[in-house]
């Protein structure tokens, strides 16, 4: 009896309409990936290497998207992530190459800066009642401005420890003929990919398994009710922005490892890419709905389009932007459909 109910709950849990968006994301990703395999399979689109490269080339967006998903679930928005990540890169680049500091010192300073700015913005948003859009926009201007004050030129990052971290990789192996050999074409997982996956897991754990995560969903569902229920609305919101600041800094570190330099104008418009990842991953901008697994596939879905364009070779890269816009439109329409149909069911 108990086993049966458990089974039923598992089935009903998985077919819950709130997961439709996540399924849509995974489904469309699989369709586009299969289409890519059909068109460019002979050029190696379906190899493990291409798939892993999706992660390697977009890990920094993914890391930032973890924090962004949480912010969006509370019904807020954070436009400062790109600039904070860029500033982190500048801290590391300027600190190691000009001030000759240890990268860890720079990273610590960046963490203090990013988390501090996040907490401050969260405080202003909640306690001074300033719209999140405006507050974080100001944060973006501030971080971007400080980037330019530090340096207007791109600075290379050269430090043995940093190089070691950027160069660290685990080759994917397969078992053949009684021994482990590297798969061909060679594919590897680097620090960024691991960090991305760990952050997704941490994010999923926080959202699904902690009281803090439940509070985030409650605030996004209805902030007033959450407050009337006695939930710590203010504290939760401030901490969410702080956590997002942490994610931005980690994304900045990841980007610095990826390009091995700091530039004051890097990742411009990155905040919108990150928001797009979260939205096509099924997070509602109205708040209350969103899952880390959706965001993971949102990042993959967004990154598979440029990969397709690269494999085609003839298209202008601008078609990527248009395709992303179309995807966004598609997902918004699906979201709209899901929301209205579930609202109809409720009444």
């Amino acid at each position, binding site marked *: 009896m108990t086993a049966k109910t458990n089974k039923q709950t598992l089935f009903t849990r998985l077919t819950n309409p709130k997961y439709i968006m996540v399924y849509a994301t995974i489904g469309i990703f699989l369709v586009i990936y299969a289409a890519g395999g059909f068109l460019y399979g002979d050029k190696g689109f379906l190899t493990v290497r291409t798939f892993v490269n999706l992660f390697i080339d977009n890990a920094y967006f993914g890391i930032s998207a973890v924090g962004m998903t949480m912010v969006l679930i509370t019904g807020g928005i954070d436009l400062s992530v790109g600039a904070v990540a860029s500033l982190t890169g500048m801290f590391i680049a300027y600190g190691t190459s000009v001030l000759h500091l240890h990268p860890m010192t720079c990273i610590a300073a960046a963490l203090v800066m990013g988390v501090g700015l996040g907490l401050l913005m969260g405080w202003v948003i909640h306690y001074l009642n300033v719209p999140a859009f405006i507050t974080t926009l100001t944060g973006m201007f501030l971080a971007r401005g400080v980037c330019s*004050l530090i340096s207007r030129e791109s600075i290379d990052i050269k430090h043995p420890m940093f190089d070691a971290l950027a160069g660290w990789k685990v080759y994917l192996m397969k078992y053949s003929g009684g021994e482990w050999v590297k798969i061909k074409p060679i594919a590897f997982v680097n620090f960024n990919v691991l960090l991305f996956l760990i952050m997704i897991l941490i994010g999923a754990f926080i959202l699904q398994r902690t009281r803090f995560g439940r509070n985030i969903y409650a605030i996004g569902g209805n902030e007033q009710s959450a407050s009337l229920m006695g939930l710590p609305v203010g504290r939760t919101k401030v901490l969410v922005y702080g956590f997002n600041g942490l994610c931005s800094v980690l994304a900045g570190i990841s980007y610095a490892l990826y390009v091995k330099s700091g530039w004051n104008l890097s990742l411009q418009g990155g905040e919108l890419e990150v928001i*797009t990842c979260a939205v096509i991953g099924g997070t509602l901008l109205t708040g209350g709905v969103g899952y880390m697994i959706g965001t993971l596939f949102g990042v993959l879905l967004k990154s598979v389009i440029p990969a397709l364009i690269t494999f085609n070779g003839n298209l202008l890269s601008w078609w990527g*932007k248009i395709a992303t816009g179309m995807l966004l439109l598609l997902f918004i329409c699906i979201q709209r459909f899901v929301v209205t149909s579930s609202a109809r069911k409720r009444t």
Partner: protein
Amino acid sequence: MAVNKKRFDVSGLMQSKVTWAVIAEALILLVCFIIRPDFFSISYQPSTGMLYGSLIDIVNRSAEITIISMGMTLVIALGGTDLSVGALVAVAGAIALKFLRWDVLTYTTPGDYTVYPYILVIAVPLIVCALMGLFNGFLVAKGGIQPIIATLILMVCGRGVAQILTDGKQFTTGYSPFRVIGQGSFLCLPMPIIITIIVVIAVALFTRKTAFGAFVESVGVNPSASRLSGIKAGSVILIVFMITGLLSGIAGLIYSSRIMSNDSNNAGLNFEMDAILAVVIGGTNMAGGRFSLTGTIVGSLIIRTIVTFVYYFGIVAEATMAFKALIIAVVIVLQSEPVRRYFARKAALRQGGAR
């Protein structure tokens, strides 16, 4: 403060967000004046028939943002945001230059000519931008999608459209009637200022002399109640987004006429952010409802004054953003609900004490 001596309602004035915006602008200008006393000087150049000076420059350079933020004010009064305006600026420039040069392989050198009639060069970008605005409005009004997401679509792919229209190339032109839009003059004033004045008057008349402004405010406060009282909320939203698209097109023409070229990467970059800031600094609440066009103009001037200030005193151009952020942070905090309530309470206490 000489609060007691004044007869008018000080606490009301202190609560008005526009007051704070004007005070902020005055303070920035005062700092400029203290550092450089010639900041306010305006000179007449007989050869070009134009007035020159920092103040003229500020108003001139703020034209694009002021024009866009007129539409943005209405969008924000509806409780929405339009993120696509910057991309539309790029689209307008791309179309205009496409019509001026059409095929760069045949018309290899930029010169004082246009391939298509001038009327098309002006009209088509405006029409396309208005239609794109209508598309935004359609998604919001008929699709019931949050404005910020609906306009995110065009923001993401608008620049892509602009690039593909011009095959990713940058055209330049030397067509003199086109130069007039951004660099010409009329009544001793730069043309962008004249266009801005016309746009401001048109929007002000349309919103304040007809019931449309009241409709916008009503829909912004409560869409369902407005519908029940007979206002077609959908049409109001469509019209507002179309106006914003059209105004972005005008700003795009001014921008590309200034540089006599199309720059799909940088034209209108961050314009949406500046326009939204101008509106919010000007005292229009992002939650929707009452709006202030005057406040928006002041907000736009504040933003431009900060930029000019930074250029004028030789600070790194890219660092403008940090200064912008600091000043905006101050304005926002002063305007925020708790702080204004605090000041209002203080002012009321003093008045009570005087009585």
